[in-house]
């Protein structure tokens, strides 16, 4: 089978380095004429109208004082200058990073669980997969309310359980520090099923002969896990981590449903997108919100680019 990860590496700069030169020459010579344009036309049209145009508009509005109901006054870089003096921005960037790091912890968990799930001859493997996948298909709004109750300091099951152990649990969603951990736990919970499936599929692609050879050499199962499974899984791990970082930086719904308004812990919990929403829809300051939106775009783009660069150092291509 072809090497899938090479293509993933090439994704953002999907250009020259992608195919070996002779093949490329052949393709060019072959010439697809107008066909590719026919293929991409509907999508390019739709994406331009519904997605690209709004981004371009937002970019323009980030240089304006944008009236609540339309009408924009050009104010140059003012919004961006304000961005740098706004103390809530670095704090929420930090919050977003911590959230993303916690959710990223779901990846090693998924690797271990997948390895167990793919154990040869394991019964009920399909049942387990379903069990772990269910959170991924729940409605975020409803699940947020359930978790809010689960974490409730007074009548929530978590603190009830802790009280049985003689521990007095904190007010999870309203204590700085704990709130972010609680929200990230839910984020991890929701994404684990997706991670498991992708990593599980990666596991199934690892040729069985490698394990057999290792077993002949007397390698323990733990040793096999670290020297065969993990290295050969790096392409899947990489894919999942890119997806996790992008969605981690878009944290909003969970915060909104779980935290409520006027929460003491909000400064230490709110995400960049939350700040964006606040300015755009609650404080009616859309020009500034647009600048925050552009900042988010730039940060995610930079992080993704870095991930693609760094992956060469740790992702193994067979």
């Amino acid at each position, binding site marked *: 089978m072809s090497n899938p990860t090479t293509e993933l590496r090439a994704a953002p700069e999907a250009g020259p380095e992608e195919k070996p030169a002779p093949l490329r020459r052949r393709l060019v010579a072959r010439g697809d004429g107008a066909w590719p344009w026919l293929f991409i036309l509907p999508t390019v049209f739709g994406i331009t109208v519904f997605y690209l145009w709004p981004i371009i508009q937002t970019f323009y509005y980030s240089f304006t004082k944008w009236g609540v109901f339309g009408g924009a006054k050009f104010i140059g870089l003012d919004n961006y200058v304000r961005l740098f003096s706004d103390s809530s921005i670095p704090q929420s960037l930090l919050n977003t990073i911590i959230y993303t790091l916690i959710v990223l912890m779901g990846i090693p968990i998924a690797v271990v669980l997948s390895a167990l799930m793919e154990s040869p001859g394991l019964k009920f493997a399909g049942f387990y997969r379903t069990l772990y996948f269910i959170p991924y298909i729940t409605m975020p709004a409803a699940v947020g309310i359930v978790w809010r109750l689960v974490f409730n300091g007074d009548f929530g099951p978590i603190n009830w359980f802790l009280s049985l152990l003689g521990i007095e649990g904190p007010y999870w*969603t309203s204590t700085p520090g704990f709130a972010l951990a609680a929200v990230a736990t839910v984020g991890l919970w929701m994404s684990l099923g997706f991670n498991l499936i992708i990593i599980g599929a990666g596991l199934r692609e690892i040729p069985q002969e490698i394990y057999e050879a290792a077993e002949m050499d007397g390698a323990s199962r733990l040793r096999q896990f670290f020297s065969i499974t993990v290295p050969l899984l790096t392409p899947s791990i990489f894919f999942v981590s890119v997806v996790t970082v992008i969605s981690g930086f878009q944290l909003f719904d969970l915060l909104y449903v779980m935290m409520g308004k006027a929460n003491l812990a909000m400064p230490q919990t709110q995400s960049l997108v939350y700040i964006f929403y606040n300015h755009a829809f609650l404080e009616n300051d859309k020009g500034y919100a647009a600048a925050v939106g552009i900042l988010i775009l730039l940060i995610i783009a930079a992080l993704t680019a870095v991930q693609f660069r760094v992956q060469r150092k740790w992702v193994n291509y067979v």
Partner: protein
Amino acid sequence: MTHLTRRSILSLAALGAATATLAACSGGAATGGAAAAAYTAPAKDISATLTYAIWDAAQKPAMQKIVDLFNVQYPNIKVNIDVTPSKGSAYWTKIQTLASSDSLPDVFWMNGPKIKLYAENNQLLPLDGLAEAKAVDTSNYPKALVDLYTVGGKLYGVPKDFDTIALFYNKALLREAGVTEPTAAWTWDDLKTSGDKISKFYAGKGVYGFSGDLTGGQTSYYNTILGAGGSIISADGKKSGFDEAGSIAGLQFWRDIIDSGVSPNMQQLTDTLATDMFTSRKLALLMDASYIVGPTHAALGDDMGVVALPKGPTSNQGVIHGLANVIPANAKNPDAARAFVAFLGTKVAAEVQAETATVIPAFNDTQQAWVDAVPGAGLQVFLDAARTASPYPISKNTGAWNSLEGQLLPQAFAGTKPAADIAKDLATKMNEALSQEA
């Protein structure tokens, strides 16, 4: 006695409203939007389809009943009621998006914090024509509400209902703790002493003496600020009042009751709203608004009692707020929409609302039915409160500083920082936000 007093107050209100109407007339003439402003009731066979956007699903049946009554007069005006919850700001996110593309619903609910934003940005149709044509008589509504929806001398909304603040109590919890029921003569000290007794009595059982919903000001700290002689915003809406001594005292009140254990702490109040604690019998005394009477009575039955707010250092004044029905400036069907808004403002429509006991109708003299819907609970105090209540504090972009309150005040209530420091910080930032409004 109450009736007499109420009537005299009403005539006073009528006078005030009349002056407002006069001012509105001259204002309307000056800007000369006469074509849209003048109103004559449309012919009975006018046909139109209107969308009526509201946010409280609990009130939909009452609104539907009013629509049915309206259709007796105008059988060919079809009104579709569209409910979007205001929880999670869904309603206002939606209305703002609709406004940004000139497609607001034909008639929709408006509240105090948003009225200036929409009126001053020319999103709303002035309704003075309705008053001039005597289709709506502003003297029928409490003056504070008419004032709230009069922006720049023009009337933009016809008051629908109002809510005032009082002290709720759970008779059973008080009885068990051996604490006498609160009276109208109570002061803040009485409240604190009794609250303390109750908290101590129920210590370890998760039941507290007294609290309020601190995630917003309307039902809690706005009232204590007024009670201590402070203010939230200056009369001209240009300057924050949070740094006044009275305002700081009004905020400190909440810090004190949390600190002394009378109230659950700030975290508990964020996890479980005070209102929910009260309905689940975890709170004996609660400062809250008239609109929770329905669900609270459903949960507590005859254990629910209500009394006027306790007196602070200066007064026991609370805030009054109410909704209004408004029409967008570019109404597709201004005549049909205005005919409907006029009908929503009639006594008949108000009586329908009163019977369902959801909210207090704004139309004077129809409120008694609302009081009578829960006999023995003492709901009259909400009507009495309307007489002395201060209008809900607003400015053009109320959302900007409401958001600041939500960011800063929890720290004062939790005691992370002194209330005075937070109040000054809030005032500075709020003044900055206000200066951005122009």
